[in-house]
């Protein structure tokens, strides 16, 4: 992988909460256009790792370079870097004080100083992409979970990010809503977006991921293509994890 292609470079990162050592010497490189899915049991550190990539969590030590910026360096303007990293949360976190359209327009207008007409045009396009054009002027409280999550994806995309982070985007959804959200994500992956996804949806991971990374006890125990990880797991803990997941 050449220098220019590397979108995320993580080197020997550690993180502890008191006695609890959540991440141990994690190193990982992610290339442009790559879709990386992170799996692992609860508490394995995969969400913490994801949240470090836009500094919602700070590492105790180690280096994190995202999009060419060293975000482990205190002098880096993290707000500028974040404008190019979209994030989608488990609980959607749509802004309750704005309508659907306003949620999508807020950041482009306030941060990119896009004029309102252009911002609205773009927001409506994004709404069409996620299949929710008819919800533009609704308050967010009137939406279902699946709709909220698709709006949240549209909100992140409105900033035309280089990288998208997904933190268990379907875990808080009713089963019948999951498909719609995953479809949006699949389309996004096909369009060439660099994506890092924490999820428990193994089927989705198999289908979409370029690479699957298995976290356990704060370490990357194994990583590889979906075929390698799911069909020929080498790591004992991964085998154990997969057998539990598939039996569930």
């Amino acid at each position: 992988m050449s220098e220019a292609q590397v979108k995320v470079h993580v080197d020997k990162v550690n993180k502890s909460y008191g006695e609890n050592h959540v991440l141990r010497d994690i190193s990982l490189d992610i290339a442009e256009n790559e879709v990386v899915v992170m799996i692992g049991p609860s508490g394995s550190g995969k969400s913490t790792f994801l949240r470090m990539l836009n500094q919602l969590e700070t590492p105790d030590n180690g280096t994190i370079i995202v999009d060419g910026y060293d975000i482990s360096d205190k002098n880096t303007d993290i707000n500028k870097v974040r404008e190019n990293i979209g994030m989608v949360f488990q609980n959607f976190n749509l802004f309750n004080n704005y309508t659907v359209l306003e949620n999508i327009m807020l950041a482009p207008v306030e941060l990119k100083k896009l004029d309102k007409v252009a911002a609205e045009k773009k927001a409506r396009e994004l709404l069409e992409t996620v299949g929710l054009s008819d919800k533009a002027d609704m308050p967010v409280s009137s939406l279902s979970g699946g709709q909220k999550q698709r709006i949240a994806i549209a909100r992140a995309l409105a900033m035309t990010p280089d990288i998208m982070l997904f933190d268990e985007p379907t875990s808080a959804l009713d089963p019948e809503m999951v498909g719609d959200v995953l479809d949006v994500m699949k389309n996004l992956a096909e369009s060439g977006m660099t994506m890092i996804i924490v999820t428990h949806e193994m089927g989705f991971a198999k289908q979409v991921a370029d690479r699957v990374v298995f976290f356990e006890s704060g370490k990357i125990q194994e990583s590889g293509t979906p075929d390698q990880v799911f069909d020929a797991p080498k790591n004992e803990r991964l085998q154990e994890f997969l057998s539990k997941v598939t039996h569930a």
Partner: protein
Amino acid sequence: MKKIWIFCVAFLATVTMMMGITKVDAAQPNYIITTDATYPPFDFQDKNNQYTGIDQEILKTIAKREGFTYTLKPMSFNAATQSVTSGQADAVIAGMSITDERKQVFDFGTPYYKSGIAWAVKKGSAIKSLQDLKGKTVAIKTGTAGADYALSIQKKYGFKVTYFSDSDTLYNDVINGNSQATFGDLPVLQYTIKNGTKLKVMNPTNPYEAGWYGFAVKKGDNAQLLASFNKGFAAIKKDGTYQKIVNKYLGAPASEFTGSKSDNSSVFGILKSNENAFMKGLWQTILLTLFGIILASIWGILLGIMGVSQNSVIRGISTTIIYIFRGMPLMVLAFFIYIGLPGVIGTKIPAFTAGVITLILNEGAYTGAFVRGGFKAVDKGQMEAARSLGFTYGKSMYKVIMPQGLKIMVPSFINQFIITLKDTSILSAIGILELTQTGTLIVSRNSQGFRVWAIIAVIYLVVITLLTWFSNWVEKRTRS
């Protein structure tokens, strides 16, 4: 929301300008002189809502003769004397007995009236002598010579005491049987009884500890004012004016000062004959409330924002301010600012300003606490989402957290507005002539406690109802 703020700021600016214009400098010395608001026949409001009485006429006559002017500040007796010792006022004339203890902090003028302590019971009471007071309760007025005397014989006769800060409430306590007797200055008790208060003086001919009333300034200060008073007093004593004044108040039928019976025996009559006083009192209450609500909200929101700051020092400052001013009774704070502070900082603080500052600090602390709570009640994910898009902490607060938090707080704000309106009544203690103080003054004149307080209570309820309607209207507007 923005329109409301613009309205508030414009209102405050207008009122402040109006108040600033009224101050005009005079070439003559102008003194601030305090008095007891309810101490007939020496100090009270007559039926035209003018302060009058033996003290007031003496003072007025002397001021005219000697060529000085003064601004009269009626308040409770205690506040009146403390205002002078703290330098808030220049002198006090309030039927104040000259005692050795008081001589240590005041310089007295020529004694102007000989008085003494009498005790009184409810008309028809079974109590005949001081011995009968054993185990009974005696009502006394805080800081008066009558109170000192009662305390000095308390052990000997074995009674309990209960304190009041205004005379009228005290008399009613005795009449209603909560307490069985009171000690006070003989002429005051006699005047009150003549005015229809159902008490009986037990020692009309031989008052205890006969002593003199004096006009007083802070020890070592205002020598010129004291000299003017003494000079003028000598003159009016010599030419008979003094005796005329005393006779006028002790000889005249009470109705001359307190209004006719028909003015006082019905709610309508009381309303009509005191229309001006009620309106003025209400206006002061409304002004205090509006200043209090607007400024305390601004201060409270600021405290609330500081309380959720990323900087732990700023958070600490907010917590400390809220802790101090929420933990302090409003009246203590009012006294501290009005009476305590001027002695230290060396400038006078007008009562209204002191009252507004008190409201800002006290109501602002409560507001700060619920504003901080409201911001914290907004889901943490909202902040994370805003930050993840690239918003700074401040912009996230402003664009996402604060609008949601303020919406949560609307009911708390309305509640706080109503509390502020009611709390303004406590500011009567520092002599602000708002609605409650107005009631006290009218009752001290006409002794119609039930009717006057019923009127005052209804006025408060009406204003609170209007305030609640207005708040609900604002709430609906912010919802949509």
